[in-house]
């Protein structure tokens, strides 16, 4: 399954700090950093010791670099007619330590913003970002469901991909030219040996035992059918009772991309800017239209919409799940709305339970 030896290099763990320092001298580097209370966030780093390689998914996913929370799209000047200048905000950067679930999230965003009309602001910025992935050798915590959506192993979407194969080194898959340039410039990477590749293969085999079956008792292929049946489920009413509509679940979701566009004048009331900011289908006003009518007034309908936007609609449109299995929505929900639980209830209700779904035959 692992092919070309030339595509792999290794980095001694003792050289990791040196690598980060050298990289950060070239361009801005962002990586997971430990915060209080066992939480993490992507922050700018300049040294290896700042990087938390063992981390549970960060509060916000790396989408914050691809589509910032607030982003200027244009400036305007109405003093002599209606003049508008497009604006693209971007900077060259490296994202380091991106887990496979978040790589999947970025792939989802790429598909969405590549649709016509293409979102140039997004696409230009994306091209300036180099991604260094990092493999999870084990589950981060009980909220993850990456096996269910096949994101527990890498499926591309990175320039370089690090895997911790032993106590003293990482093996690195070089996937793009940009990745290759980083390797060459850093000058601390060694060619990988057959033994290194064997170690990687062994690790992947061990992972098959760890991520042995789907976290939720349903076959990957039957999720679509489940959602075909579950639209009028009682489960959505249960969620309505719990949900505070705070929007945390969508804000932390690596594949949620909804935004609102706002024109804001400067204090001279003549010039100003047009910007977009993250919006959420969970917000009271999201589906409110002129006249005050809201077509998703009920919190249950909004939660249902969120689930369908992960497991049904994108499957029909892009042939992929937009749930990346990262577990952030469950982790962040103070009302305790849990994705795995919700799916399990729907499965029970529809009589589609298979406790061994997705089981890998070992040996």
């Amino acid at each position, binding site marked *: 399954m692992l092919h070309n030896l030339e595509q792999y290099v290794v980095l001694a763990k003792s050289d990791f700090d040196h690598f980060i320092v050298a990289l950060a001298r070239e361009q801005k580097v962002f990586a997971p950093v430990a*915060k*209080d*209370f066992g*939480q993490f*966030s992507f922050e700018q780093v300049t040294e290896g010791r700042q990087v938390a390689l063992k981390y549970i998914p960060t*509060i*916000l996913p790396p989408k*914050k670099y691809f589509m910032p*929370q607030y982003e200027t799209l244009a400036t305007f000047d109405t003093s002599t007619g209606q003049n508008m200048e497009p604006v693209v905000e971007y900077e060259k950067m490296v994202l380091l330590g991106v887990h496979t679930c978040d790589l999947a999230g970025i792939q989802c965003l790429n598909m969405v913003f590549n649709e016509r009309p293409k979102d140039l602001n997004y696409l230009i910025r994306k091209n300036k970002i180099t991604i260094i992935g990092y493999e999870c050798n084990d589950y981060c915590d009980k909220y993850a469901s990456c096996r269910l959506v096949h994101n527990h192993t890498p499926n591309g979407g990175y320039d370089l991909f690090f895997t911790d194969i032993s106590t003293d080194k990482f093996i690195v898959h070089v996937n793009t030219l940009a990745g290759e340039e980083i390797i060459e410039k850093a000058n601390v990477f060694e060619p990988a040996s057959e033994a290194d590749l064997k170690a990687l293969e062994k690790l992947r085999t061990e992972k098959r035992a760890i991520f042995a079956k789907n976290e939720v008792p349903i076959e990957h292929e039957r999720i679509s059918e489940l959602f075909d049946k579950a639209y009028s489920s009682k489960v959505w009413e249960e969620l309505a*009772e*719990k*949900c*505070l*509509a*705070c*929007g*945390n679940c969508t*804000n*932390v979701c690596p594949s949620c991309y909804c935004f609102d566009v706002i024109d*804001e*004048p400067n*204090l*001279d*009331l003549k010039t100003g800017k047009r910007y977009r*900011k*993250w919006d*959420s289908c*969970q*917000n*009271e*006003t999201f589906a409110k239209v002129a006249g005050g009518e809201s077509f998703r007034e009920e*919190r249950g309908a909004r939660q249902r919409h969120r689930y369908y936007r992960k497991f049904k609609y994108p499957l029909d449109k892009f042939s992929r799940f937009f749930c990346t299995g990262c577990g952030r929505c469950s982790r*962040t929900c*103070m*009302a*305790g709305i849990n994705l795995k639980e919700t799916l399990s209830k729907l499965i029970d209700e529809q009589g589609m339970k298979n406790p061994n779904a997705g089981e890998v035959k070992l040996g």
Partner: protein
Amino acid sequence: MAKPKVAFFDFACCEGCQLQIANIGELLLDVLGLIDVVEFREVMSEKGPDKIDVAIVEGSITDKHAIERIKKIRERASVLIAYGACACTGGVNGMKNNFKLEDIRKEVYGDRFNYFDTVETKAVHQVVKVDYFVNGCPVYIPEFVKVLKCALQGLPYEVPDQSVCTECKLNENVCMYERGVTCLGPVTKAGCNSWCINNGNICYGCRGMVSNPNEKGAQDVIKKYNVPMDLVMNKMNMYNKCRENDKK
């Protein structure tokens, strides 16, 4: 074109929100370049003309005299901005409504209480029509500037009707509930950019509750985190007591 005439007024409040104007910093010069301040008790002794373009009103309405005064201000002003928690939601003055008015007067004025009338605390919009709201205790200056720009251009300003959590999450703060602290962010209107939580404090709910809070859900959360209900009710009471007047 003459600059719009803007006047500041205060009712029951600490005048801290008006003081925030002085905290604007350099932006203050741009703001002053835009408007003509004709009345502002904290900084000048002149009184404004009969007709003013924008009245910025701080404080809540707590006695008969105040009711008369706010009505007159409303008549003078083309646009009225309720400014700060006391004006927008009744603010901390609303706590008075937990007691009998008679007892309150005796507590405050002793045996001379008969000389002083009092009425149930009301937010400004519960007495006269309000065109714009700048919530918060104190107001969040970037929001005030936004509202002012809208008012001067005749555009509507919608106070965000989602919870503080939305902005707090965008700022990537560790949730206060994770820290084991009760925070009113989940039921409080956004618009302050989660100012308090960014600085390590909790949300006290000073901007008022979202229009459609999930009370049952909030109770479940409170139970889940083992927070005593009366503690939360007290916290809610601090800024949201006058909400009852809106239901009447």
